[in-house]
């Protein structure tokens, strides 16, 4: 394993996380309760308590490149159990945003799903399920994912074949453009930068 140099933590990274999450990582005393309760720990490459430790050490790249950030379901078990009142899920959320901004997406399919979801919302003001599936398949080529759910959802009317936009979908689209800092009106390529 690599030797971690303690002298030069990425203090700017720590400051950013602190500011954006409103949480104080140094409150963590490494009891491991977040990892103990995490239902997705089996799939993680770095357990959440270790992410907190690496954060204290200012290990930016190691954290932003890990898969756990993308696999987190934001169930908030970690937040609930933390004896020090740290909103751990919020920190993971912020880290995921930062990973996106830094161009890391170690779980490409998770990011593709997020992108497809946001594109759909931008276009219709709400989710158009079939559109999301189409977008996801287009990005990943995973045509068979969850295909068995189709026959169950179709008869219940959960998979409308025609998109329906909400009133004022344009206002929602404007939020996306404003977020990207684009002039009005502009191209609609989805929420890549979110």
């Amino acid at each position: 394993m690599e030797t971690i140099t303690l002298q030069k933590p990425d203090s700017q990274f720590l400051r950013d996380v602190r500011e954006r999450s409103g949480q104080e990582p140094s409150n963590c005393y490494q009891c491991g309760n977040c990892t103990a309760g995490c239902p997705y720990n089996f799939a993680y490459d770095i357990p959440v308590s270790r992410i907190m430790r690496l954060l204290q050490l200012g290990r930016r790249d190691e954290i932003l490149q890990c898969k756990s950030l993308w696999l987190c379901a934001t169930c908030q078990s970690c937040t609930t159990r933390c004896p020090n009142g740290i909103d751990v899920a919020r920190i993971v959320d912020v880290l995921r945003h930062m990973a996106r901004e830094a161009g890391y997406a170690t779980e490409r399919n998770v990011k593709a799903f997020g992108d497809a979801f946001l594109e759909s919302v931008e276009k219709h003001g709400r989710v158009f399920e079939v559109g999301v599936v189409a977008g996801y398949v287009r990005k990943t080529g995973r045509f068979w994912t969850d295909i068995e759910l189709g026959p169950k959802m179709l008869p219940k009317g959960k998979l409308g074949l025609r998109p329906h936009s909400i009133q004022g979908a344009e206002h929602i689209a404007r939020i996306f453009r404003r977020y990207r800092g684009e002039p009005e009106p502009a191209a609609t390529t989805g929420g890549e930068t979110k």
Partner: protein
Amino acid sequence: MRIGVFVCHCGSNIAATVDCPSVAEAAKLFPDVVFATDTMYACSEPGQDGIIQAIKEHRLDGCVVASCSPRMHEPTFRRALERAGLNRYMLEMANIREHVSWIGKNKELNTGKATELVRIAAEKLRLNTPLFANQFDVTKRVLVIGGGVAGIQAALDCADAGIQVIMVERETSIGGKMAKLDKTFPTVDCSSCILGPKMVDVAQHPNITLYAASEVEEISGYVGNFDVKVRRKATYVNWASCTGCGLCMEKCPSKKSHDAFNEGVATTTAINIPFPQAIPKKAAINPEFCMKLQKGKCGVCAKVCPTKCIDFEQQDTIVSEKVGAIVAATGYDLFDWTVYGQYGAGRYPDVVTSLQYERMMNASGPTSGHIQRPSDGREPKRVVFIQCVGSRDKSVNRPYCSGFCCMYTAKQAVLTKDHIPDSDSYVFYMDIRSPGKGYDEFTRRAQEQYGVQYVRGRVSMVYPKGDVLVVRGADTLAGTQVEVEADLVVLAVGVEASKGAAHLAEKLRISYDQYGFFMESHPKLKPVETNTAGVYLAGCSQGPKDIPTSVGQGSAAAAKVLTLFAKDKLESDPQVSSVNQNRCVGCLKCTMTCPFGAIKDVKDRAGNTKAEVIETVCQGCGICTVTCPHGAIQLQHFTDNQILAEVNALCQPELEF
């Protein structure tokens, strides 16, 4: 008046952010100040000698010392003044350390504030008059509140020194928490075997009066002369004739009473003696469960009692005692572990507290020392211990470490192996805190010799699966989640202040911290004293501590009591109120507002009503002075004129320096 001003550098504590020489220079311009200097350490011997020398050389009448808080060195400088032949109350201190240098970084502003504080002190000093202490008698008897091991030790040490001791215990037996324990760490010797003889000593000592099943109702008075009212709660048994034969317990039909001594592991009878070694060994009725007291039908105990000592009509009685000192040793209680819903605390019968487990292992406990699962009575083969339940957990407002759970958990794990040789024990811990003689060796032995599996991490949940409990936690050293199926889960529940401690602190007029633990006078140098003269602390009432430390504190508190009682007379503080009889119109508003009952009404020679202060009772709070419509009653050393002089000094236009 000739005033000298001494501005202390306190090394760099003050001098780093206050320009001490210029404060002294500015002070020379204040009225009546004839001498001013700065000094490196005013409290040091050369510093004090400098003050004494200056008093003699410059014929000073009073001194202002600008240094630390008077809580630190006021007695030092008062003695220095006395050595120079001045009255000790001709000293004023300006706190330019805690109030200035330690809290501000701007040297210019700090210097200005320090100068103003010196000016305030000098202005007050101009109105100071010499005050003289009176002497009063000491009642050489001590009240010990709490009959745990700390209180027992304090009581025995005082009693052996020939002091009369009154011990008040809330429960029906003394012994406290230690009496409930099976063994004690790190020697694994039997708890009741080492405590028992001390309990018997308390019972038999001619100098100790024990009031069990009693609580302190009211405390008045002052150091050397406290008046204490003790409420002796109704036990419905005449203890004078009860022999502790236990026949009533055998026959009592109400067998489902809560057994507080056994921590609810089992039930007991409504009339009971809590445990075989109880001191005093007297029966008491728990009225909540007694059929006679609840429904009026039964009275079996009264029929079988050979000495006819059952008295269903018994009422609480109040006893008055006079004592000169008080030792508060009220111990601790367990944190309410049921808030840990994720551990199934209070829901799953096989999740027990450490103290319940202690009773289960104890040979005189409800299971006769056989470890059994409360749910089905089966012997557990896998026992999981979870530490820091109600300790080091900000989310339940218990950020402090309870101190001894690491050790008793190691002890319980070792004992589990002794009781059930084919069992496995697992301990979930965050850090092992074992800083004591032989302590760390003991926790190592638990792991090396007894094979206790230590897992570094907290537990996130306990859930039932069939008839076992699944414990899911983290092993942060392995860096992942771990799971273990347990037959029994023991929660190492943390310590909190004894129930009612805060209430008692108010009666004792001592302070307590945000968790209800009593505050010592100084965290390092006065660990058993309080800020109320004559009231001392011992044991867990001050904060979590183990048995050796509690015993040590019990002895320390006793030493303090004996030191106090070594003098036949005590000096009263002259900083009390006094009435100017010429101005007093006898309205007696002061007697009504005085919280200490220190003002009485008297008749002067003409038969007019006047107020008079009982000097020894007055605490110098000053409430009477603001009540008096005529300014007739004044607090010595803090008269209206002195305080107004301070205000006037402060409210002047900006000083030039």
